[in-house]
Structures are given as structure tokens and as C-alpha cells.
């Protein structure tokens, strides 16, 4: 029953897509500046259909209808409601449906929110958007249908991978999809803009909202994933340069570049083609990421399942997408020379863009190199964090410097009267780090330089804020994001220097002394929860220097459906330090392995990322800056 209804609704969605493409094409030929009412109606109906189909899958999950293979494979009756709901997008088929729902909603919103934009431009955008929608829908229906039936109907499902049963992870995929899919709008709009020879500045105004929205969701989506990895995976790290994490980071670099460069296009009607290229690349990167994750060619915590036929479809889709955009770009791109004033604001913005592209290329090479190497030479390698750190960290120094200088520069001119002040700020930053160095004796030159320039950025941004007050012109959004970025780099650097880790094996009741700490595994409790059993260790950590105690309770969880063991870290956080303990049993012995870590500024790292996002979000609010 639910299966038939679901199938009906997705087929209707696909039909609406075809109708929209057809009527838009017809509408293009007609005179007049208004889009036919019919198109709005079909678009609304289409949106209703996909939401209904998603709703049906949701109902099937909530009521554990195992007549759907998808529900049977990814859910279980004893699962808490929250994870029944998040189970909908915790698997390939369901998440693809969510992806399509967002595509359709965005398509409708774009049509309705840009009533002032040119008719041809809007219709072409709608056509491209619906070609994308149809592509994904055909993939869903033919290869990854969440409404496929199962007969006979089993009494119980196979359950959701326990590692995915986590609140941060419940919201992580939808947030990221809003980012990924949001970029589809400006992909379609960029192609439409090329074909219709749309005015650059108007194009920038139209896509600005979408770039900011997708960037904002991408930022907090990455954050949610990172927090999850920190709490759940038990390595104590928050970013692993895992190929799949990288595929969410790559579009983020492009979105960040885009946020900055559309300012030039909006204000100066320059670098039009560059903005177009970035818009096309962002969604292309999102689909490439999807390909890497779903095809199973990467081994990682994210890989859904090994199914080459999925990969094949996405790859064909991706190549069609790339080659057609390349063709459209080749055929329609106007040739226009840019003129740039050295040290003007647009100069700094372009520098930002080149850095973003550099970071993107570094991450792209690190992600794809193992795949290419395996095909060419059958060697299996993996590229680890050292590569990324070695290649990118030195470039952070000039990057931080340029981020500090950019906001001071003027549009269209190279005037700068802050030389003295800049030098003074730099001087202060060096002094702060020298004082810091005196106490900590950190000898790494690179880290010290990064610290100096992150402080430089922080100080410059604070000065920028005061200049804003003086001029009564507020760009709060930029100030918050830049300030938070400076703090982020500062905290990450401090975190990387001062994190300590101890690895020890203890028996129940045993204690051990390490440096200033005494660690005791006081006792173990076994408790039964709804869908798992847990062994909770009572760990006491005494800081002998400060004479303080901390009680931590790391867990080993044994889930029943499917039978899996997970290790839950116990984390005590305050603003300055996280104390982090994970516990695992050593098979065939009475010892337990404890990993005890002290990590500075974790909370502040999360907060910095939140504020980077908040900065972007403020731009979305209708409140305009005073001039």
C-alpha cells in the first residue's frame, strides 16, 4: 500500500518535471514578460508530490512497515523514535529522496522569489533545474527505489547501524544536503545566465541569497559531522581528512570563494565569467562528492554500500553535466577583459579566491590520488593528515594576512592610509606571541607564525569594527565571520600543540600514575537499555598538581539489532579544556584499554565555526546595512 503510493508520487513528480521543461520551453517562445500561471501551478504541485512521497517513507519508518525493503534493511521496532525518523536519510535510497525533495523545493522557491528577474533567465533556470531533478528521479526509480517491496513481510527489521544513532548525525545529512543541493540553483542559474546573456550584476543579486544559504548550511552541516566524529568515533579528533569529509569541504571552499567574488560582480559588474565558473564548479563538486560517497570506491565511515551500478549512473550523469556545461560555456561565454587596480578591494577578494582554489586543489589531489594510483598501478595507498597539514599550513600565513588587509581596502582604488597602523598591529601580535613563547617554549616556527597572523587578523578585525562605528556603516556579517575565522585558526593551532594523549591498560579497580595524573578504573556497571546493553566504566582522574578530581564514564555499548559494539567517549568539557576518555575491552583478558586525552579549546573551536556561520546568516536577514 505505502509502496504503491510512494511510487505513484515519485512518478508524478517526474511527470511534473517533464511538463515543466516542456512548458518552460514553450514559454520561451512566447512574447510578453510574464511567466505563464500554468508553470507556477505545476511547480507547486510537483513540490506537493515529492513532499508527500517523502512523508510516506517517513510514515513507513515510524510505523516500521517492513514490507518496504528499505525500511526492513535500515530500521527496527525497538529503535527510539528520533532514530526511526533519521533512519529515513541514514541510507542511500532515503537520502537520495531527501536530496530530490530539496532540489524540488528550491526550484519552486527560486521561481517564486525572483519575480523581478528576467523571464527568459528564470525559465532557462527552471529548465536546467528540472533536468537535474529528472536525472536524479530516474536514478531513484530505476536503481535506488526506497519504495521497493519485500514479500513475505518480515516481522522485524535489520536495524540502523548504531554508530549512526546519534543526535548530531541525525541532523548532519539534511544540513549538508541543503548546502550541496542549494548549489544546484546557482549551477542552473549560471547556465541560464550564459545562454540568455543576462546582466552580470543582476545575476549576482539573484544568486547571492542562494550562495549564502547553501554556504551557511554547508558550514553547520560540516560542523555537525565533525562534532559527531569527535564524540562517536573515539579517536579524539575532529577532522580526519577522510576522503568523504573532504568531499563536503571541497564545495565549501568554492562557496566561500563565491560569497566573496559575487560582491565584485554585484558592485562592479566585473569578473562575470569567473563567478559563472565558480557557480558551475560548486555543484559539480557536490555531485562528484556524491559519486565518491555512493559508489563505494572509497573506504570510509560514510560509504553506504558497495554497489558499482550506482556509481556508474552518477558518473554518467556527472559527465553529461560537466561536458554540457563546458559546451554551453564555450558557446555562450562573452569575452570581456577585466581591469583591476592593484591593492584595491577587488584585488584582495580575488586573492581570497585564489587561496580557496589552491586549498581546493590540494584537497582534491589528496582525495583522488589514491583512486587514480590504484587504477594505474594497482597500488593501494591512503593520503593522511600530514600531507594536508604540510601543504596547506604554510599558506595559512599569507592567507591570514590578506584576510586582515582586504576589508580595509577601498573599492576601485588602491588608496591606503593605514600603513603605520598595520605595522603597529603586526608589532603587537608579535609581542603577544613572544610573551606566549616565553611561557610555553613552543619551538615550531610555522605554528608561531600562524599564531602571530591569526592574532593579527583578530586585532585588525576588531579595529575594523571600530572604524565601522565611526563611519556608522556596519558590515557585522563580515566582522563576525572574519573574527571567528581568526579565532578558529588560533584555537586549532593551540589545540594541535597542547593536546596530550595517554594510552593505558587497566584492570577493574586498578589505578596508575602518569605525569601529573592518577587514573583509576574504579568499577564497572552493566546496564540494559532499550536496544543495547552497556558496560559503563567509572573512571576517576586526579590532577595531582592542582589536586582536583574528575569523574568520567566511558561506555562500551553492545547493540542487539544489528549486533554491533560501539565505544562511547566520556567527555568533560569546560571552556578551556576537554577531558576525554574512551574505553574498550581487550579480548581474552581482564584488562580494559583506556585512552585518556586532554584537549584545549574544543568548545571554542566549535563556537568559532558556529560564529563563522552566524556571520553568513546575518547577511541573509532582510536588515540592510546603513549607508
Amino acid at each position, binding site marked *: 500500500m505505502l509502496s504503491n503510493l510512494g511510487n505513484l508520487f515519485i512518478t508524478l513528480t517526474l511527470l511534473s518535471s517533464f511538463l515543466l521543461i516542456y512548458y518552460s520551453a514553450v514559454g520561451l517562445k512566447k512574447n510578453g514578460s510574464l511567466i505563464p500561471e500554468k508553470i507556477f501551478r505545476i511547480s507547486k504541485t510537483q513540490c506537493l508530490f515529492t513532499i508527500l512521497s517523502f512523508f510516506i517513507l517517513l510514515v513507513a519508518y515510524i510505523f516500521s512497515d517492513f514490507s518496504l525493503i528499505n525500511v526492513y534493511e535500515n530500521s527496527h521496532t525497538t529503535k527510539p523514535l528520533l532514530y526511526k525518523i533519521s533512519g529515513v536519510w541514514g541510507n542511500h535510497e532515503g537520502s537520495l529522496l531527501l536530496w530530490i525533495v530539496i532540489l524540488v523545493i528550491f526550484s519552486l522557491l527560486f521561481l517564486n522569489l525572483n519575480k523581478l528577474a528576467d523571464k527568459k533567465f528564470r525559465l532557462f533556470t527552471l529548465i536546467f533545474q528540472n533536468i537535474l531533478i529528472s536525472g536524479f528521479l530516474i536514478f531513484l526509480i530505476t536503481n535506488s527505489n526506497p519504495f521497493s517491496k519485500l514479500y513475505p513481510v518480515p516481522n522485524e527489521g535489520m536495524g540502523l547501524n548504531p554508530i549512526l544513532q546519534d543526535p548530531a548525525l541525525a541532523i548532519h545529512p539534511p544540513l549538508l544536503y541543503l548546502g550541496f543541493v542549494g548549489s544546484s540553483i546557482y549551477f542552473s542559474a549560471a547556465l541560464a545566465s550564459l545562454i540568455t546573456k543576462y546582466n552580470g550584476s543582476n545575476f549576482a543579486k539573484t544568486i547571492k541569497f542562494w550562495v549564502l544559504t547553501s554556504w551557511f548550511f554547508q558550514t553547520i552541516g560540516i560542523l555537525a559531522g565533525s562534532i559527531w566524529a569527535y564524540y562517536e568515533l573515539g579517536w579524539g579528533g575532529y577532522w580526519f581528512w577522510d576522503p568523504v569529509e573532504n568531499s563536503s569541504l571541497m564545495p565549501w571552499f568554492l562557496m566561500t570563494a563565491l560569497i566573496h567574488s559575487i560582491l565584485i560582480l554585484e558592485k562592479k559588474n566585473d569578473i562575470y565569467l569567473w563567478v559563472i565558473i565558480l557557480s558551475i564548479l560548486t555543484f559539480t563538486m557536490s555531485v562528484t562528492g556524491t559519486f565518491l560517497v555512493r559508489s563505494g570506491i572509497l573506504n570510509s565511515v560514510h560509504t553506504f554500500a558497495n554497489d558499482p551500478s550506482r556509481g556508474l549512473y552518477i558518473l554518467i550523469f556527472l559527465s553529461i553535466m560537466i561536458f554540457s556545461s563546458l559546451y554551453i560555456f*564555450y558557446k555562450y561565454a562573452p569575452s570581456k577583459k577585466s581591469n583591476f587596480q592593484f591593492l584595491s578591494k577587488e584585488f584582495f577578494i580575488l586573492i581570497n579566491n585564489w587561496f580557496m582554489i589552491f586549498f581546493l586543489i590540494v584537497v582534491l589531489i589528496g582525495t583522488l590520488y589514491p583512486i587514480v594510483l590504484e587504477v594505474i598501478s594497482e597500488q593501494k595507498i591512503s593520503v593522511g593528515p600530514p600531507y594536508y597539514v604540510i601543504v596547506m599550513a604554510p599558506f595559512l600565513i599569507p592567507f591570514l594576512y590578506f584576510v586582515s588587509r582586504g576589508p580595509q581596502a577601498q573599492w576601485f582604488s588602491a588608496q591606503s592610509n593605514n600603513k603605520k597602523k598595520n605595522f603597529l598591529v603586526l608589532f603587537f601580535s608579535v609581542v603577544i606571541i613572544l610573551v606566549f613563547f616565553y611561557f610555553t617554549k613552543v619551538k615550531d616556527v610555522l605554528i608561531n607564525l600562524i599564531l602571530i597572523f591569526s592574532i593579527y587578523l583578530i586585532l585588525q578585525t576588531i579595529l575594523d569594527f571600530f572604524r565601522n562605528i565611526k563611519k556608522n556603516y556596519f558590515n557585522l556579517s563580515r566582522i563576525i565571520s572574519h573574527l571567528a575565522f581568526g579565532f578558529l585558526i588560533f584555537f586549532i593551532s593551540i589545540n594541535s600543540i597542547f593536546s596530550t594523549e595517554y594510552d593505558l591498560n587497566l584492570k577493574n579497580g586498578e589505578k596508575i600514575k602518569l605525569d601529573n595524573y592518577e587514573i583509576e578504573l574504579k568499577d564497572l556497571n552493566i546496564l540494559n537499555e532499550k536496544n543495547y546493553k552497556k558496560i559503563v566504566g567509572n573512571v576517576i582522574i586526579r590532577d595531582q598538581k592542582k589536586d582536583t578530581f574528575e569523574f568520567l564514564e566511558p561506555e562500551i555499548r553492545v547493540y542487539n539489532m544489528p549486533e554491533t559494539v560501539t565505544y562511547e567517549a566520556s567527555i568533560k568539557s569546560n571552556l578551556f579544556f576537554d577531558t576525554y576518555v574512551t574505553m574498550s575491552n581487550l579480548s581474552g583478558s581482564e584488562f580494559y584499554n583506556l585512552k585518556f586525552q586532554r584537549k584545549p579549546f574544543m568548545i571554542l573551536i566549535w563556537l568559532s565555526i558556529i560564529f563563522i556561520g552566524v556571520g553568513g546568516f546575518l547577511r541573509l536577514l532582510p536588515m540592510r546595512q546603513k549607508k
Partner: protein
Amino acid sequence: MKKIIFTIISISLFLFFIILFDSLKINRVYNTEELVGKPIPSINLEYLNEDKYFNTSDLSKNQFTLINFFSSWCGPCRKEHKYLISLSEKNLKIVGINFKDKKQNANQFLNDLGNPYYLTLEDNTGKKSVDFGVYGIPETILINKNLLIIKKYIGPIDKKDMNEILRSSGIK
């Protein structure tokens, strides 16, 4: 000029896509079935209860040898143990490799359930078993005197497997 740039971009993208298409064909599932027909590695393993080493190439003295990976903490190993005992009673030479275990527990295990092995070796780190292509226990390998793997069983053996082993080693 524009044309040349676009051609170069298109060709390099095309080549790149060919590589991605190729990468889809690579089988990523770790499969040890293909080890059947290949020789076992020559490895020195310590005896469980003696400070001596045994080299696996010495197994060429036997017409057929069954190599069983077991551990006292492994539940399925207990389940298959009675079939190993039956096989040893039919005079099949069985080598036991004790996987990631404690000597004391392993001996207790063999005392309680009977010892089907004519040789008991140990691999307390589990690293040497990996060289045999073992990734979980129990696993059982039947080799001939040329040290070639004839049969390979992942997971506990049952009655059907036992009969197959007997047939393959020419006992039944």
C-alpha cells in the same frame, strides 16, 4: 586560442572520467576464496607449550593437513570442535593455531573439549594468521602435501563440511 584551451580541458576531463569508470570495476570486498589453489606461506610459529618453532613447510611430510585457527574466547570454535575431534579420530592430521589467546586459557579449552591437534602452535598477536589470509576465527584450511590450499572454510565447520573434508583428503 579559446578552442585549444577547451579541447585540452575536454580531453583531460575525458581521460579523468575513464579512470573513474575503471575504478568502479575494482573489487573492494576482501575475499580470501581466491587463495584456494595457492600455496600456504612459509612461516615460523611457536609451539603452544614449548619454546620451539615449527616451520609450516614441514607440513609437506603429511599427505593432507587440516589447519584450524581457534581461540578459547571464540564461541563458534566450541561449536565446531566436535567435528575436529571426529576428523582426528579418522586419522586426519590437524594443526591448531591458537589465535590471540592466553596459553593458560587455550590449554584449559583443550582439556575441557578434547585435543584434536597433533600440533598446537600459537599466534598470540594474530599477525601471522593474517599471512594465511585469515581475518576472523574460526577458519579452517585443508592443504595437500605440496602445501597447496584445497579447501577453505570461513566460520565454524559443520557436518557437511566435515564430510567434504574427509572426501577431499581421500579418507572417505
